[in-house]
């Protein structure tokens, strides 16, 4: 076991990635995630790795494509506008089945937006973002310790499924400091990747990394293969945390840093005798539908609290499927919901005023 270190979120991600065996990072500056590429630029040369500052987010994600295709554990990071630029590359990476980890420290949008925390890239992350039928695993940590643990898992999951995995944080998680502990042994040997383009001297036959299928039947077969893989991911990889749901009249859905604010509000509500529970999706895709379906049997109402105009609430509604009312409370633009305002919303819903 390591010791506890007080680290900034963005730097903690970098260290966790290095300990997970990542030696290649391709990035481009954008607030509020700059400490991550800066950390990698400083640290990677110390461990025999390399950080390349690309000419754009587009170039960075395509460097990731090349490096992942060559068999490396590789990462890129950005924040919302930059992640939009990466969508083309992500679609290609998903189609060519290349493992990699992408970090999005979400900021307020749309457009250039702002630099304060937001969660308004939920749809982009979970519903495609780029063109075509593809899925990414999307992991949403709520604390820096969880972020560190999830970065390690993200690399393993990426390799397991040969699929991109996104860490969806926000400006707050990137900038804040909390104690973290790097619990696991450092990864020194990467899993063998017999499909990677490392030169024919390193593997039998010839390897090609590609997403072009000009024959419709072959492209459909490729899509069916991908969909089978996504179904497996959906069946095996759902993660969520559930607190006080069993007796809750109101079940609140919230992820990431918003879930912490909701938790503070929930504890205040419990002290006042209000039966409020929390389901915190840790995987945003696959979404923990079953947890909500189960809760719909006992809860009287649901509420989704987000730093957006209402995105995850659609998945909550799909899961609850009309059985119970689903309400929404959100702030946008980098405004952060306060525990007091969230508590007020609880009271309105439970008092029948919502």
């Amino acid at each position, binding site marked *: 076991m390591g010791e506890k270190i007080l680290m900034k979120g963005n730097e903690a991600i970098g260290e966790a990635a290095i300990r997970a065996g990542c030696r*290649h990072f391709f990035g481009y500056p954008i607030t509020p995630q700059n400490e991550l590429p800066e950390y990698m630029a400083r640290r990677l040369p110390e461990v025999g790795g390399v950080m390349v500052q690309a000419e754009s987010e587009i*170039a960075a994600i395509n460097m990731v494509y090349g490096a992942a295709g060559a068999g490396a554990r590789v990462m890129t990071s950005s924040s919302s506008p930059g992640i939009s630029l990466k969508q083309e590359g992500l679609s290609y990476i998903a189609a060519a089945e290349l493992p990699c980890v992408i970090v999005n420290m979400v900021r307020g949008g749309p457009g250039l937006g702002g630099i304060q925390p937001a969660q308004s890239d939920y749809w982009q992350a979970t519903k495609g973002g780029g063109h075509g039928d593809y899925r990414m695993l999307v992991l949403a940590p709520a604390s820096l310790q969880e972020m560190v643990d999830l970065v390690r898992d993200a690399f393993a999951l990426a390799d397991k499924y040969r699929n991109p995995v996104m860490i969806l944080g926000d400006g707050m998680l990137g900038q804040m400091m909390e104690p973290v502990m790097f619990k696991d042994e450092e990864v020194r040997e990467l899993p063998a990747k017999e499909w990677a383009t490392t030169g*024919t001297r390193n593997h039998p036959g010839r390897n*090609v990394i590609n997403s*072009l299928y000009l024959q419709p039947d072959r492209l459909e077969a490729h899509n069916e293969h991908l969909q089978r893989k996504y179904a497996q991911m959906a069946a095996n990889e759902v993660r969520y945390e559930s607190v006080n749901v069993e007796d809750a009249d109101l079940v609140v859905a919230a992820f990431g840093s918003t879930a912490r604010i909701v938790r503070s509000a929930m504890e205040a509500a419990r002290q006042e005798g209000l039966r409020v529970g929390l389901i915190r999706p840790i995987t945003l895709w696959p979404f923990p539908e079953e947890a909500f379906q189960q809760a719909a049997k006992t809860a009287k109402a649901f509420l989704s609290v987000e730093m957006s105009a209402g995105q995850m609430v659609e998945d909550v509604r799909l899961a609850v499927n009309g059985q119970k009312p689903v309400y929404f409370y959100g702030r946008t633009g980098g405004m952060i919901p306060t525990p007091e305002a969230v508590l007020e919303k609880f009271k309105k819903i439970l008092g029948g005023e919502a």
Partner: protein
Amino acid sequence: MAKVFARPKALADVVTHYCPGCTHGIIHRLVAEAIDELDILDRTIGVAPVGCAVLAYDYFECDMQEAAHGRAPAVCTGIKRVLPDAIVFSYQGDGDLASIGAAEIVHAAARGENITVIFVNNGIYGMTGGQMAPTTLIGHKTTTSPYGRDAAVQGYPLRIAEMLATLEGPAYIERVSVHTPQHVNRAKRAIKRAFANQVEGKGFSIVEVLSTCPTNWGMTPVEALQRVADEMIPYYPLGVFKDIDAEGEDK
């Protein structure tokens, strides 16, 4: 009897999809010969573009990656940084390299990435059906410059070799043509040199090859070759634009 002419080992034994009279076939062969002669096939990784050469990953016997439009130099960068001992090349057309991928080629060159770029310039988008390219000559009629490229409307064609030669990063930049056997031989030397430079760790090397598109130029193959001499070369002069070895000799 000794065999004096054979398919290079690096060139796959398949029928290509290229149009009759197109010079991609010649250029593919020159790349394959260079790989054979340097004996690097088993450590070479090629990156195919989007455009006419999109299926190049089927035509070379090395490992290949297919890149998004214009991004081949970034993909090459990713591969080379992971596998510094591999020989990494991109094979790109003018739409791919000089238009949508202008940023990627400039910055890969500026970083002096130790890669080899084969840039095939025929002044038109072939795969998509004959649209104007960033390298389409003034006055040339294409489906998106139906009245002929007019500088006042569509601007001027880009000279990539000259542009990149202003940078410190590249080791070697040459423009060649394949419209006569003599030019093919010179192109062969340039392409081999561009790969040898990478083997020797000299840095970024690019060979711009003037090419034809009989189909979309609306010409016979012979007329098309003649047009390279008459119209292309006057605007895109052949020659070495940068060579760090020659610079060394001068001093």
